[in-house]
């Protein structure tokens, strides 16, 4: 079973390098799926500060990545999540999954990002154009997206 790579970091990441990394030096990879999440300027958002619980957040991401590796025949899996102050247009999260066949790569990538968007241990503090700030609360639509992956 593939060993996932999990990184929680302030720095930007290079999606191309991460995608290439899952194919490097091997010939059993038939497809690589990726999802890049970008900070969106909803409601006059000026910046967003992402907070995490060091140690616990990485463990939680590692657990869900291991679950994806058990559920789909993946050859590689990388999750990179940024924390700290991000501006609209900044990349926030990257999920990359590789497999011999496309369906496993595409499905596991969607599974992981749906989980990350709802259950991942992060907290978001938004700075708005009028100078006010607010803590983001959990969203029902994202919960529905995550729920569709519940084991049958």
């Amino acid at each position, binding site marked *: 079973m593939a060993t996932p790579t999990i990184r929680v970091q302030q720095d930007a990441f290079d999606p191309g390098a991460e995608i290439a990394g899952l194919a490097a030096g091997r010939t059993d990879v038939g497809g690589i799926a990726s999802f890049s*999440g970008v900070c969106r300027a909803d409601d006059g958002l000026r910046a967003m500060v*992402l*907070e995490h*619980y060091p140690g*616990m957040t990485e463990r939680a991401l590692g657990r869900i990545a291991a679950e994806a590796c058990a559920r789909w025949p993946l050859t590689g899996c990388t999750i990179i*999540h940024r924390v700290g102050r991000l501006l609209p247009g900044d990349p*926030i*999260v990257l999920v990359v999954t590789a497999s011999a066949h496309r369906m496993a790569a595409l499905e596991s990538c969607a599974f992981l990002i749906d989980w*990350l*968007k*709802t*259950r*991942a*241990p*992060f*907290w*978001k*503090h938004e700075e708005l154009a009028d100078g006010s700030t607010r*803590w*983001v*609360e*959990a*969203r029902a639509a*994202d919960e529905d997206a995550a729920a569709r992956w519940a084991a049958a």
Partner: protein
Amino acid sequence: MQILYFAWVRQKIGLAEEQVTPPEQVRDVAGLIAWLAARSPGHAAAFADQEFCAPDAPVAPGDEVAFFPPVTGG
């Protein structure tokens, strides 16, 4: 015992972490919250009117205990 605070809990209390030594009769999360809430007005505000997961989970000296609001995902 090491206590960690995140998101608005941290903001209300004004601390990200603190080292505390609760009295012996503090043996679970509910007891710890009641004891912490008396430490400052910020602590009281952070813990007021909140529901907590596993209030009867045991706590002991040497534990790390983190308080945070429901996660909002990435």
